[in-house]
């Protein structure tokens, strides 16, 4: 069972790394959105420090959504997805592998690049650490919830816009607590702990439930 998991994970990673532009586009999008805000609202240090946490998360939400559309699309088009559904392996596990590969390619780079954003927004060193931790816990939740939406809108006309309508409302808790963690750490680093714990709770819940919902959605799409 786990060998199937690893197999899918490696396959998706290899496929993703062979089409590097897709991976880099999401990352570039994230950086551009984050860089646009200071130009729009002014570059005063204080304003940026207040704005930073929210901007990082909104940009992460949008970047994650941008990449989601392709999560199942290629496999759907060439029929691989149908084969995956037909395998005796539990579909939710295979979905989890695909989502994990997707996160490694689009979510993890955001975590790695976060210190650059921290510099742009004059965040303190400790805050940057909290930001990375929050993104580390939060972005997998985005990928997991997003996978449900991606599966539901598979092959539907206007799928991209529809996906944002379905998924963004469900992203809001992650946005609130993710930005909250960075925000409160401006005063004291330790204050961020409850927010991080809540994000971790979201992650656990999404890990257990989202693959099941995604698998059900894929079965509906392929019926």
């Amino acid at each position, binding site marked *: 069972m786990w060998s199937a998991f690893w197999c899918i994970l490696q396959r998706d990673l290899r496929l993703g790394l062979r089409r590097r532009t897709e991976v880099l586009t999401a990352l570039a999008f994230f950086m551009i959105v984050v860089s646009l805000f200071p130009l729009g609202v002014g570059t005063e240090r204080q304003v940026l420090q207040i704005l930073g946490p929210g901007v990082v998360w909104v940009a992460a939400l949008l970047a994650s959504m941008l990449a989601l559309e392709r999560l199942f699309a290629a496999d759907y088009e060439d029929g691989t997805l149908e084969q995956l559904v037909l395998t005796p392996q539990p579909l939710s596990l295979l979905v989890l592998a695909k989502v994990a590969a997707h996160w490694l390619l689009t979510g993890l780079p955001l975590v790695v690049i976060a210190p650059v954003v921290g510099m742009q927004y004059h965040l303190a060193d400790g805050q940057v650490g909290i930001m990375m931790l929050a993104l580390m816990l939060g972005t997998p939740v985005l990928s997991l919830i997003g996978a*449900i939406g991606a599966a*539901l*809108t598979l092959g*539907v*006309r*206007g*799928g991209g816009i*529809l996906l944002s*309508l*379905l998924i*963004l*409302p*469900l992203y*809001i*808790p992650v946005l609130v607590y993710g930005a909250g963690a960075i925000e409160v750490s401006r005063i004291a680093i330790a204050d961020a702990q409850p927010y991080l714990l809540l994000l971790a709770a979201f992650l656990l819940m999404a890990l257990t439930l989202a693959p099941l*919902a995604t698998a*059900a*959605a894929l079965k*509906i*799409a392929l*019926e």
Partner: protein
Amino acid sequence: MTFNPFKFAAPATFYPLAGRLIPWFWALTVVPLALGLYWGFFQTPDQLGGSNAQKEYYRIIFVHVPAAWMSMWLYVVMVFWAALGLVFNTRLSFMMANAVAPTGAIFTFLALWTGAFWGRPSWGTYWDWDPRLTSELVLFFMYLGYLALNAAIDDQRRADRAAALLAIVGLVIVPVIYWSINCPDPNQCAALHQRSDLTRIEGNILFAMLTMTLAFWMYAFAVSLMRLRTLILEREAEAIWVQELVGGRAIP
């Protein structure tokens, strides 16, 4: 012959039943609506006394609060039918969920809209990012998402099932709205809404509010059934009984 409620799970038998029920639900809507509005506007105390003095504008709660209750309830009702449809694969359940959704969305919008009108004189703003306002707005987006997904997929069967799954996933938001005010530690959640507690409401106000809620419930039944009848005709257009009903030539 014993009464078999499952008989009405078939669209062909439910259609006439719904037709007979609709006038009753309309009657049950109009009477409490008139009573509730009259009582709320003329028979309740002029203003809430004490430190929380409000003028006549507080009377909008007789629409606002029942609408907000209905917005949450109807989401639960919608999820119930959607889940029933997914589990038992019954056509009518999905139609029921589809019929309830627009009404739920309208009540959510009404709750937000009346809230904004109330907020302007009492809080000095149409909109504030109070947890309950925000979560109600999210609920509105969930309804819109359900309706949009349903409309976007051409294959009706897939549209029903996909939208049902989305509705079930979105159910997580309902307890969030409910507990956005009544959270265990009031110090942790500052909000403009008061904690809701039925026992602390003045008797006349509570009576008017519950009467309005009853009226809204019955209205929801009436319009949902009307929408359901249209959906049945639309989806069962190929069935012989529909052809006979609309006077067309029956397909042999």
